[in-house]
């Protein structure tokens, strides 16, 4: 297990750069995580991130389809917010583990 400094906090991350403990997350951490993916976070991004964190907390499986039906963003919008691998990138920035779903 590695530790990396984001926004002044020593954060535990796994080999792929996903946060191990989602409780270490805050908005400043998210901004720095997003920078590594070349994404500048807007309010819309944060709405999606909060949605993902809530889903993960309640133990639901994350799918692109579910995010498209969340009412926050449609699927096209989700791809625009997090280009080139939206679910992988959004979960990383949201401080949760990498999703294991195939859809």
């Amino acid at each position, binding site marked *: 297990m590695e530790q990396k400094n984001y926004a002044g906090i020593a954060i535990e991350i796994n080999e792929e750069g996903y946060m191990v403990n989602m409780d270490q997350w805050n908005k400043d951490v998210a901004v720095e995580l997003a920078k590594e993916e070349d994404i500048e976070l807007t309010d819309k991004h944060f709405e999606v991130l909060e949605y993902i964190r809530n889903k993960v907390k309640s133990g639901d499986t994350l799918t692109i389809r579910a995010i498209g039906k969340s009412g926050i963003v449609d699927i096209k919008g989700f791809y625009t917010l997090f280009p080139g691998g*939206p679910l992988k990138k959004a979960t990383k920035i949201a401080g949760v583990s990498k999703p294991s779903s195939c859809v």
Partner: protein
Amino acid sequence: MVKKEEHPLKKVCIICAKGSIEDVYATLIMANGAVMEGIETNLFFTFFGLDAITKKQMKKLHTATVGNPAMRMPGGLPFPTVLGLIPGVEAGVSAMMKSQMEKLDIPPVDEFLEMITAGGGEIYACKLAMDMFKLKKEDLSEHVKDVLTVGQFYELSGGENTQIIFT
């Protein structure tokens, strides 16, 4: 843990030539998965695979209950082939497959095509098979970008780290 790939896939071109639920869904799931990974994705439907993008047929895909040795009863007992001959059995089995997939958040075909194109994937139909089945572009889903010849399909499949997958 998956090792970091040194030469990640850049593009996949997936060909679907069959029209049963499992053939079409294998194609759609692989295509959508590629789009989700940020891989450039082209889908090419030909022969009976055209059912998946034909407006009239896409909601009526079936799984074969005859000549399908992997078919089982719910619970795992073998499925006698003669049962599959009874009218309505194939439709029932197919409806069951679809409801099982819906539970896993796997969408119906039309919505799946929309998900793939929303993520930048492109969907094409085979010209020769269209001519054979007397289909016109307007018979196809609005998500179909174009009708291509084999040559045009290969042109789309060029470039480094591209794979062609035949499902």
